Structure formats: structure tokens, C-alpha cells
């Protein structure tokens, strides 16, 4: 696991010094993260990398994962879809299952931290059981809240306002709430297997293993097989491109343990891709970070054609590798991409196809987008900035006021 000093050459020693100074002011405090999955998806990934860094700073960072049965995760998936604006029934029985599962999880949580940091809706109802005089509680929302389904929103709002603060990933997710709302973008870890520099031989080996031809352009989308990532739309865009411009398409990703729809989406994708030898649908098992890294680095263009997106960390991953990225202008993606400066933002399948062709045919422009994107990520979306923002959040829970002198 990486140590703080390993990040100095990437972000500068002064930023690491700031982290140490902030950590010293929270030394020994217990920060307890709670979410619903230990593997798969951006939340688990960030917590995996961030927890050791917080510990190195002297903070007692912990991470608990709630348990639930299939019924619970079907309910939370429906909530997830509804919060993303996809109409989803949310019945009284769904609410009961949700509340009961949260309550049942109390058996698995023996102590509460000085700070309790609950991630996403799944464990949100735990707040009802926490003594808020003894523990400072914040809720971290990782999903797109631009247009939530009203009944689900009102159900959650009651819980959210029981916290001291809510944390969102993008300005557009802010809602009228009676509590503080803090903006914290997620991040990537430049030293993680998924993002670290790779020798050419490793990239070649991975491409060879999957049957990719490195002499021809490769267009890639890395993401979970989820309707909201629009993998079928990606294949349709690729087919439009292929009429005039040769390329291969890679759709690669895994599944999260809290996503019961993944198999259905994967089936749809395979059906759409059927018969085309240049479409590579790769369902990757957990721990395929080197493969993902290699596929991104081997790509000519990277896509993230999301219809809804919490933040879209795969965009930051590709930008960090200085790749030209074409992505849907949703959720936190516009924070990462300024159109035609650090990437391309699109709204339709046709627009995506148009820009794939443009970038494949104008490599110098594509290369400039990638370089600008990398510097934007360095300044704003690396894990060191994220650690700093979390430390500031916890300090602000302890110390009110617009000006906090540390």
C-alpha cells in the first residue's frame, strides 16, 4: 500500500505537509465509514485506498459494511435508479424492508466513532440509532441527485436532515436542506494498480490476452454493466463510426455486489454486439485493476457515455493517463471535462459517434485534450486532495464558524 511520501513527486511536498498538519489536529479520533459493499464501484475503491492514508496521518479510520439480502439490494437498486430519475416503484413494503435491514445491521456494529460517515442511501437509516450528542454524523452522497424521484427523495430527506452535514460530489446535486451541504469531489489514486504507470510489455500482454490488435485504433469504455452507463448506446455509436473509420471497441467492467441488474445488462450488451469480431465485451472479475489500467493505456479514445452519473471516476482515470475522453455531460463529468479543452462532452449516440471519428482522425487535437485533462486531474481529482477535503469536513464538524484558525 502506498505511503503519503510516495505522493510527493506527483502533487508536491507542500500538499503532503498540509495533510500532516490537518491530520495532527484530528489525531486519535475515530472516523467510522459505513457503506454497503466492500468491492466493486467507486465508493469501495476510494475507501480501500483512503483508509490507510488516514491512519498514517494519525486518524483512527475504520470501515464497516452493512449486510443485506437480495430483497434489500433490489430495493436499494430501485432507489438508486429512482434517484437518478429512472421511474421506479417504491412501495410501503420496500420502505419496511429498508428500515428493518438498517435496524438489523446494528447487531454487526459494536461501536460508533467520534465521526460517523455514512456513504450513500443504503445505510442512511442507521442515523436513527446513533446518539448524536456523542457522535458527529455526516452523510456522503456519491450519486447524481439532479432529478430524484419525489417519493424516494422525500423518504430519504427525513434521514438526511438528521445528519449534521451532507456531502455531494457536484454543485447540481445540492437540494434545499436544513443542514450544511459540502461539496467534495471524489478522486483517483495515481499509485493504485488501476492508475500507476505500466511497462509497455504489460500493456501488450493484456491486449494480446484479450485478442486486441494494437496496430488498429481501440475505443474503450470501462464501467460496470449498468443501464445508466449506456453500454448498448456505446455499441450503436461504434457501429456508426465503423461505417467510415476502422476501430475496435472494448466494453470492459465488472459488477458490484449491491447491483442485481448487472447480468441483464451484460446479456443485452452481448446481444447487441453479436457477430462483430471487433467488439470485445469483457466481464472482468474483481481485482482486474492491472487489466483495466492496461486497456485504458492501450486505448486511442476512451468513452464514458453515461446517461446518469454520480461522478464518473473512470473519466478521471483515463484523463490521468492523458487519454482523449468523450463522455456524457451528466453528473460530475462536466467538472472533469471542459468541452474541447480537456475532453469532449456529448449528449447523444450520434454526437458520440461524431466525436469518436473526429478524434480518431485528428490525433494531435486528441493528444492535446489528453494532456490538458491530465493536468486538470492532477490539480483537482487525486486522492491527496480528497483526503484533505475529508479532514476539513471533520474539523468543520467540530469547529463552527466561517473562519477556522488551526
Amino acid at each position, binding site marked *: 500500500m502506498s505511503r503519503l511520501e510516495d505522493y510527493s513527486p506527483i502533487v508536491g511536498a507542500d500538499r503532503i505537509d498540509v495533510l500532516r498538519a490537518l491530520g495532527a489536529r484530528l489525531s486519535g479520533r475515530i472516523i467510522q465509514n459505513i457503506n454497503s459493499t466492500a468491492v466493486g464501484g467507486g465508493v469501495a475503491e476510494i475507501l480501500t485506498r483512503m483508509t490507510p492514508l488516514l491512519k498514517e496521518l494519525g486518524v483512527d479510520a475504520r470501515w464497516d459494511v452493512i449486510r443485506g439480502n437480495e430483497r434489500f439490494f433490489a430495493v436499494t437498486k430501485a432507489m438508486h435508479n429512482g434517484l437518478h430519475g429512472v421511474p421506479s416503484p417504491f412501495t410501503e413494503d420496500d420502505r419496511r424492508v429498508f428500515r428493518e435491514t438498517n435496524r438489523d445491521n446494528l447487531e454487526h456494529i459494536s461501536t460508533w466513532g467520534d465521526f460517523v460517515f455514512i456513504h450513500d442511501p443504503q445505510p442512511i437509516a442507521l442515523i436513527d440509532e446513533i446518539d448524536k450528542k456523542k457522535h458527529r454524523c455526516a452523510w456522503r452522497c456519491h450519486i447524481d441527485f439532479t432529478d430524484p424521484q419525489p417519493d424516494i427523495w422525500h423518504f430519504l430527506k427525513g434521514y438526511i436532515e438528521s445528519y449534521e452535514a451532507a456531502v455531494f460530489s457536484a454543485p447540481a446535486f*445540492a437540494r434545499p436542506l436544513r443542514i450544511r451541504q459540502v461539496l467534495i469531489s471524489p478522486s483517483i489514486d495515481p499509485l493504485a494498480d488501476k492508475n500507476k504507470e505500466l511497462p509497455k510489455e504489460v500493456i501488450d500482454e493484456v491486449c494480446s490476452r484479450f485478442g486486441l490488435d494494437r496496430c488498429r485504433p481501440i475505443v474503450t469504455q470501462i464501467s460496470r454493466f449498468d443501464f445508466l452507463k449506456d453500454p448498448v448506446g456505446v455499441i450503436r455509436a461504434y457501429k456508426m463510426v465503423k461505417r467510415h473509420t476502422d476501430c475496435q471497441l472494448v466494453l470492459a467492467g465488472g459488477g458490484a455486489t449491491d447491483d442485481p441488474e448487472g447480468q441483464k445488462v451484460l446479456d443485452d450488451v452481448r446481444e447487441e454486439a453479436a457477430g462483430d469480431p471487433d467488439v470485445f465485451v469483457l466481464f472482468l472479475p474483481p481485482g482486474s485493476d492491472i487489466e483495466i489500467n492496461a486497456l485504458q493505456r492501450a486505448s486511442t479514445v476512451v468513452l464514458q457515455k453515461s446517461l446518469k452519473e454520480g461522478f464518473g471516476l473512470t473519466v478521471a482515470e483515463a484523463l490521468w493517463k492523458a487519454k482523449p475522453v468523450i463522455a456524457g455531460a451528466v453528473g460530475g463529468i462536466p467538472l472533469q471535462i471542459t468541452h474541447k479543452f480537456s475532453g469532449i462532452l456529448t449528449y447523444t449516440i450520434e454526437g458520440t459517434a461524431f466525436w469518436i471519428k473526429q478524434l480518431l482522425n485528428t490525433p494531435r487535437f486528441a493528444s492535446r485534450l489528453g494532456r490538458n485533462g491530465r493536468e486538470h486531474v492532477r490539480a483537482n481529482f487525486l486522492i491527496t486532495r480528497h483526503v484533505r477535503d475529508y479532514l476539513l469536513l471533520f474539523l468543520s464538524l467540530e469547529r463552527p464558524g466561517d473562519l477556522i484558525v488551526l
Partner: protein
Amino acid sequence: MTEPFVFRLQLTQVELLGRRAGNITELRHHLKEIPDTSIYYHTHHRLRQHVIRSPEPPNDFSYWITKALGLAKMGEAFSSLPFASYRSIAEIRQAFLSPLDAFLLEENGHRPQAPAGMEFHFLDGRTFLLPTGLEARTPEEFKEVIGRTPIGSIQYHVFAPRLGMAPPEYDFAAWFEARGREDIARDIRRLDPYTMTLETLRLNILKKVADHVAA
């Protein structure tokens, strides 16, 4: 002998106010009500990005008016305000409101609406101050320290005190003045910090001090 100048580093926690504007009427409404810290945030946070994305409109309002509403003339008016001459957020707030009022008084004027997804979201900034461990007791020491203090420190000491967002004694020029060095204070105050990157600003302050120290 006055107190040493203590270099502090500003860190900003960004908060969401849950307010949004889709047109000039809504922008004006919120601009009248949002806290000073929000106006300070929207007019100053891009100064850090300015380092790598120059030239960049110096405030969020002008950028949004230009890009989302397509009002290039008003956007330019917002970006070209004489920020260096303002001494309070109240002055900046009024400087923004005046052209908006005039715009809304125009009969049959064009009233653009931001496209969906391009509304203006009002943010706020909570300031944390960390000691840098750097101090200066003389102009000579100041000249040496200003060259190596973190860039966030320069930003804080130059912009926040002059707008009443930090104690006046945190201002570089005020410190020189208190030491009887009005000559250095005057030269620092003459700089327009809004028209250069923070690194250029650092070099300019260093040069102003060096000119007098050398002399």
C-alpha cells in the same frame, strides 16, 4: 518594533447553498441574499486555477452569464469590474447588482434562460487557516520568505484582508505600513492582483520589496 508577519495558508471548504439561478432575475434575487463569503468564493476561487488555465474569466458570474446565458456584453462587464479598487464585499455586490438592475429595466429586452443543466449553483467557502511556520521580522526576511511560502498563502494575504475577509493586520502592505515603510506598502498596493497569475503576483511583490531593500 512591530510583530513579525506570520504567513498563513488558506484552505477552503466548499459548501453548497442549495440555491440556483436560471436567468438574470433569479441571479439578481440570490445575489442580494447570499452571504459575503459566497460572493468572495465565486469571485476569487478561480485565481488558483488561473495558474494553469490562463486566461480565464476571474469570476464565476461573468463566466456563467457569458456561457450559459449568451450575454457576452454583460459577461464582459462583470469580468472587467475594477476589483482591485474595492475594499469590501458590499462594494462588489453592489457593482454586480447595478448592471443587473439596468438590464431588467430595459423594456422588451432579451431575457435568456440557461439551458437545462447549466443553471448557476451558488456555493460558499469556509476558510481554514494553517500556520506555514514562516515569519518575517524585517523587509529583508520578508523578501526571502515570500519567495517560498505556499501559493495559497500569497492568495490569502493579498485578497482576503483588502476585502474585509481577514483581519487587516494580515495584509502585506499594512504590515509594512506599521513598520514605517509606506514606500513598500504603496508599491504593493499599486499592484492589480486580479490581472496576473498568483506566481506572477508573488514575483511582483518580491520585486517591489527587493527594490526598496536593495536601495
